[in-house]
């Protein structure tokens, strides 16, 4: 293993983080030099028994000095805060149409699902110069996908989606690992991040054994689980039509409203009672235990595809992950 798998600046964002790090290192270095320099000078001059005349210490001045360095410290700290916060804020919003890769973490392995349907374990292939968004969830405890070369880290929680996104600029093989303590084999829950040129990535995807993309796999599940029995326009059962629902606001039976994003669709399968759409009977079965996180991802991808086919703009309204 090589240290460059960790500390390479593999994206523009990583470079920005490093710049901030250098800035703070310089400021900190100066403060340490100042304080230790002063201590050494005072020792050299005023050690007990030195002949240095001590003279008066004007007490009146001390107030001005105190206010002086309080204000100076405050402003330099605010300056660093402003710099850091602007970095943070510009990195917040994931770009639209990012390539979305689903991540499922569990004790102690990683599973990645590409939109093309390709799956991999403990290895993540991504194209360079492309916005990539990772939608992550955990099947058990809290994990954390740490991508050192991209200076990214995000906890992954059970029953919830968290996101991180990047646009890598360097190709190569880098390290990724779990950063939130998750039990016995926490320290070997790691893998390789392979950043490839977009062309290589396309070739790699094409070479993957599973031909169907996520949405098609989802459709197959949708049929085999019997969802289609109710959720089709012509069905005799009174259930919401899923065409175009993704990204739109839905009114729930308890009077609240939610936007139909990934988290909502997921809740519909696992918590049907609290996500029931107004005007529909409570007949949706609870799929907890019947589908795993990977299958939920496929089903959601299918329902999303029902919207993008007919209403290309729908996804723009999705707040999922956006800040």
């Amino acid at each position, binding site marked *: 293993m090589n240290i460059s798998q960790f500390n390479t600046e593999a994206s523009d964002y990583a470079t920005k983080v490093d710049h901030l790090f250098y800035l703070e290192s310089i400021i900190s270095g100066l403060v340490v030099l100042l304080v230790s320099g002063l201590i050494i000078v005072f020792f050299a001059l005023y050690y007990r028994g030195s002949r240095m005349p001590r003279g008066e210490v004007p007490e009146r001045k001390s107030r001005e000095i105190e206010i002086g360095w309080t204000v100076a410290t405050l402003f330099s700290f605010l300056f660093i805060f402003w710099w850091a916060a602007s970095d943070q804020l510009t990195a917040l919003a994931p770009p639209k149409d990012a390539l979305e890769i689903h991540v499922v973490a569990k004790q102690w392995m990683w599973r990645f699902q590409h939109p093309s349907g390709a799956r991999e374990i403990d290895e993540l292939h991504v194209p360079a110069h492309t916005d990539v968004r990772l939608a992550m969830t955990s099947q058990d405890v809290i994990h954390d996908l740490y991508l050192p070369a991209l200076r990214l880290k995000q906890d992954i929680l059970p029953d919830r989606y968290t996101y991180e996104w990047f646009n890598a600029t360097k190709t190569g093989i880098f390290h990724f690992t779990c950063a939130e303590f998750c039990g016995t084999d926490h320290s070997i829950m790691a893998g390789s991040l392979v950043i490839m040129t977009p062309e290589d990535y396309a070739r790699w995807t094409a070479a993957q054994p599973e031909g169907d993309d996520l949405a098609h796999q989802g459709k197959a599940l949708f049929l085999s689980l019997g969802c289609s029995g109710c959720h089709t326009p012509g069905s005799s059962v009174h259930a919401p039509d899923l065409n175009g629902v993704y990204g739109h606001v839905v009114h729930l039976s*308890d009077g609240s409203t939610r936007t139909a994003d990934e988290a909502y669709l997921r809740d519909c399968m696992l*918590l049907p*009672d*609290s996500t029931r759409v107004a005007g529909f009977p409570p007949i949706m079965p609870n799929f907890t235990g019947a589908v795993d996180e990977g299958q939920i991802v496929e089903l959601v991808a299918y329902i999303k595809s029902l919207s993008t086919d007919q209403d290309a703009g729908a996804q723009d309204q999705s707040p999922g992950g956006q800040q």
Partner: protein
Amino acid sequence: MTETAGALREPWPDLRLQREGVGLGMWIFLASEVLFFGSLFCGYAVYRTFNVEAFRIAGAHTEIVYGSINTVLLLTSSLTMTIALRAATAELRNLTLYCLAATAALGAAFVLCKGLEYHEDLKQHLFPGLHFPLSPPATQMFWGFYWIMTGIHAVHLTGGIVVVLVVFTLFKRRVIPVQGSTMEGVAIYWHFVDSVWLVLYPLLYLAGRP
């Protein structure tokens, strides 16, 4: 000014300061307790914000009769406790003893009521777990808080009853004089436990009524 001799303890110079000190110490401890219960209320508030309907459904299943009786019992016990403290300050020894006994009895009645209520709840399997009768799942969250909140409150109250009984015995046997600083601390603590219940009552019993 008859029996103060045994009341003064190290390191206090006089009884007035000692009483003030005990009062202050108890109030500081209560500030700590406020945060203890405050964090519990904060959890309840967060979860209720996101599960309004589930909390309403779950709240409809608490035993409002027991809850209401208990509220009145505790309010009354606070009254008797106040009188006990004032009587102690005024050196009315018998009144102090009567009121302390009444307070302990009201407290015990509360615990008894609470026990009956728990029994009733358990009969309906209202304990989060496999056989929990309500849905959606967040109703279990409400009941989780119900058990923890009432449980911790009951522990506090039981502790209070024990302390009141001990103080009662010590007064009765004239081990310590009533006008010492002891009553100060006991009374403040008792009122605090009562106040906590006044928050629990609307959160747990009135939440799902209409």
